[in-house]
């Protein structure tokens, strides 16, 4: 069974085409991340799936049912907003149970479902508080709780972690993947942060300017980026991308090699380079190089490497890891 299927989805706001034709299939139980620079239409696409925006063209299927023109509440989805969108005047208990009480579920049953969700998310002691008396991470969990009690076929998350500090974000990433494993529902997660995409996704959808650039597992995108855009977007520090004559010499319009796939040597090497700057991160260090020919490049070497600024080194790419792109930015295989 498919969790979610988009076919030929487009969206225009007036004369502006924001989504320019999306075809996508998300399998049942998959954790799918939409990633792309801000303004590329991720939120709009998610809101189209949720039913908060109408499509201009195309169809949406959830669990095998065409929901293109269904009301949001009838699509079998639940959404967690970036701002959490908790109802400020209701307690945590009422926030989580609001949808159920609107559906006229018996009180005892609501209490049981809210209790179970609170247990799962460790919210039980906070049930009688108002949202303003909660920390960011707790609000986040309430928003997730409100989604869980709806028993949705698809969970939608719009940059849910971007309002949290770095430490909490790492923890919530873990909690969300745990939650996904526990409840096994299809999840669609929007972020502009490629680290979140790489660490959480079963499937990553890289978007750019209203189009899908590439769909694949995190390692597929990392190893075999289909376009220059994906190559530059996925991976940190970003891939060295070289164009112009230096790339032409290597048989491509654009040539890419990741910093971790360059090796440095005292002499020899494919290119000669000088060390301009070194960032020591402990476990490894990032070396900024002025390379004769290609120009500026980054290399990632071991943390203990006794390299110094101004040193002259040889630079050699791992031939198995080189990426070549044609003039249209498509990978050449």
């Amino acid at each position, binding site marked *: 069974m498919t969790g979610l299927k988009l076919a030929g989805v487009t969206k225009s706001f007036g004369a502006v085409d924001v989504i320019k034709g999306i075809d996508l299939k998300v399998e049942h139980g998959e954790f799918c991340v939409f990633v792309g620079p801000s303004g590329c239409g991720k939120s709009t696409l998610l809101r189209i799936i949720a*039913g908060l925006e109408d499509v201009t063209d195309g169809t949406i299927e959830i669990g095998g049912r065409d929901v293109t023109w269904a009301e*949001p509440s009838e699509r079998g*989805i639940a*959404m967690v*907003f970036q701002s959490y*969108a908790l*109802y*400020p005047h209701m307690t945590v208990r009422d926030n989580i149970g609001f949808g159920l009480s609107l*559906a006229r579920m018996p009180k005892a049953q609501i209490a049981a479902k809210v209790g179970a969700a609170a247990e799962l998310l460790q919210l039980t002691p906070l049930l009688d508080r108002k949202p303003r008396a909660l920390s960011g991470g707790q609000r986040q969990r309430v928003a997730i709780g*409100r989604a869980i009690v709806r028993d949705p076929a698809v969970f939608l998350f719009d940059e849910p972690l971007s309002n949290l500090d770095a430490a909490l974000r790492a923890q919530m990433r873990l909690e969300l993947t745990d939650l996904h494993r526990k409840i096994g529902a299809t999840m669609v997660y929007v972020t502009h942060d490629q680290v979140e995409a790489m660490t959480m996704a079963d499937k990553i959808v890289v978007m750019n300017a209203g189009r899908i650039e590439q769909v694949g597992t995190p390692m597929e995108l990392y190893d075999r980026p289909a376009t220059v855009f994906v190559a530059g977007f996925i991976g940190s520090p970003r891939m060295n991308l070289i164009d112009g004559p230096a790339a032409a010499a290597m048989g491509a319009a654009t040539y890419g090699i990741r910093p971790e796939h360059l090796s440095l040597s005292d002499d020899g090497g494919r290119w000669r380079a000088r060390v301009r700057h070194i960032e020591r991160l402990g476990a490894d260090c990032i070396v900024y190089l002025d390379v004769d020919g290609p120009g500026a490049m980054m290399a990632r070497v071991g943390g203990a490497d006794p390299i110094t600024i101004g040193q002259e080194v040889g630079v050699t790419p791992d031939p198995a890891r080189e990426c070549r792109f044609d003039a249209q930015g498509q990978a050449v295989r």
Partner: protein
Amino acid sequence: MNRKTARRARIKGGLTLALFFFVFVVPFVFIALQAVKNRQESSLLNFAWPSEWVFWQNFITVISARDYMLLLAYFNSIVITVGSVTLLVIFSAMVGYVLQRRKSRLNGFVMALVLAGLMIPPAVVPTIWVLQGIGLFKTIHGMILIQVAYGLSFSILLYRAFIATIPRDLDEAARIDGAKPWQIFFRVVLPLLKPVTVTNIVVQSIGIFNDFTNPLYYLPGRRNVTVQLTVFNFQSQFSTQYNLMFMNILLVTIPPLIVFIFFNRQIVAGMTAGAIKG
């Protein structure tokens, strides 16, 4: 330098206080003084201290005058105020919500009507014709509708500015939770409008309770008297009983004054809360 500006600020503050004392407190003291004097002394209309205090006697006379008209007036005024403020709050919150949230081609036209309601002074005689035509002239519910119509524009503008500060995400979250549009409004949005609703209730009810001219035009008749019109009870072409008139004024001024003093802070909060992001 710093000390000098501080002193200047204090002088300015003092002058302002003195000015407000003269504008607001002195007339009030004057009213209170006349209200406790006997008839001869009060007819002099001065600030002299009363030679005898006849507060209680004036009080009883005013209350019981013309078959307890003041009590009837209080009843009428309260019915009009409560009725029209209730309708005002519900309708203007709804209109403000729709105007702020649903962008449509009609918005500009509706906003123009709202502003017209604020800018164009109502015409009395045609309004009376209309009221007579639909059988609402000289009725309390007709008066209520008049007050709603006159107050609607102001309340809509207050609500609209405030609703702009309520994130749209909340509406959308409720929609996903399965709320119908009216449920989104009554269960999510309206409870969050509490600060501006307090402002609306207080400002409008003081205005309507204190209204003199509209009941005078649209609600004639002995049974229909409202509090502000009872002031006429002790004033006639040939003789005016100033002590009783001022006691009457005192009795109809104090309740709204108390409400105002009590809710002062919330009124300002509700007025400015919408202004920040409006």
